[in-house]
């Protein structure tokens, strides 16, 4: 549902706002650094992927050069990319990319709260980069699917080999994807939603 800002004077009250706020759902897109999360989000988002920042305070205690104990706080900025898709029935689907580095895993709790689930993107040349994501979602029982990103449209490995290497349980869907392709991204999202529905039904 799209509505334009009122072009009339400020008194024009009855702007065509939809009745009630949209229902909001979200899907998390995870994976290692530079695996194509933002490209994946951008391939299907209605809006250009946006970037939001959270300032993190890190507390460190240590011994400084002069032999004294230092107790300092440093502020780091963590960036997250996200996009949005408006679906029929006043449904807004947000896609949030996880911050890349492992040491920000604690931030994911905030991100996944209330999410449908996650798409974990995998680059088979750097398989180990997706370990933290797989561990995270598996240990919390959050529905996820694994999308093996085929750079240049070339599948280098059989899905079953990747599944074995990553120790992905049999019930977790795995598929080839191409982060640049809207159709492929769509398939990944569909696989995730179906998987989440199965998980609810089985509960």
């Amino acid at each position: 549902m799209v509505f334009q800002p009122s072009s009339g004077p400020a008194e024009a009250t009855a702007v065509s706002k939809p009745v009630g706020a949209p229902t909001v759902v979200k899907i998390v897109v995870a994976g290692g650094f530079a695996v194509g999360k933002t490209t994946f989000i951008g391939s299907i988002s209605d809006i250009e992927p946006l970037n939001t920042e959270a300032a993190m305070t890190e507390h460190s205690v240590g011994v400084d050069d002069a032999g004294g104990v230092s107790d300092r706080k440093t502020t780091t900025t963590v960036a997250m990319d996200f996009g949005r898709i408006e679906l029929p029935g006043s449904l807004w689907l947000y896609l949030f990319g996880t911050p890349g580095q492992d040491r920000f895993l604690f931030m994911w709790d905030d991100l996944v709260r209330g999410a449908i689930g996650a798409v974990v993107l995998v680059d088979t040349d750097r398989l180990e980069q997706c370990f933290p994501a797989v561990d995270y979602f598996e240990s919390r029982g959050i529905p996820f699917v694994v999308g093996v990103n085929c750079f240049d449209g070339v599948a280098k490995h059989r899905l079953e080999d990747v599944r074995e290497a990553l120790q992905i349980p049999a019930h977790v869907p795995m598929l080839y994807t191409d982060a640049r392709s809207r159709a492929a991204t769509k398939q990944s999202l569909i696989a995730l939603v179906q998987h989440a529905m199965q998980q609810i039904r089985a509960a």
Partner: protein
Amino acid sequence: MMNRRSSSHSMDGEHFEAATVRPYAVTGGRVRSATSNLPLETLIEVLPGAVDSRGLPPEKRAILSHAASTYVSIAEVSALLRMPLGVVRILIADLAEDGYLTIHTSTPVNVHTGHGQNPALSLSVLESVLNGISAL
């Protein structure tokens, strides 16, 4: 109803200056509030009574101006106004408390957390999401 035009006098100049202020200066030094836990996708809606935003600091007026004509999420406010999430959450909680805007939190889908979930509702939302994505 407040619109972009009525609130945009000298907003650009003020906004530019605001960006050079340390983030927590604009929250009065606070780093937490009752609603600092608001999900990133929480939507805000500016209330019709918020026409008069005079007297508010530029950051709050910028938020009201951005949200004036449409629902907008906390994540979008943060990205578009280039303010850290933590700051935006606090400012939005303040604005809600002072009656300038309404906060819409909807988390109908709860697949993995056991509490307070309604499987039938979650399934019907997921069904709509599935149909919607399939039709893209």
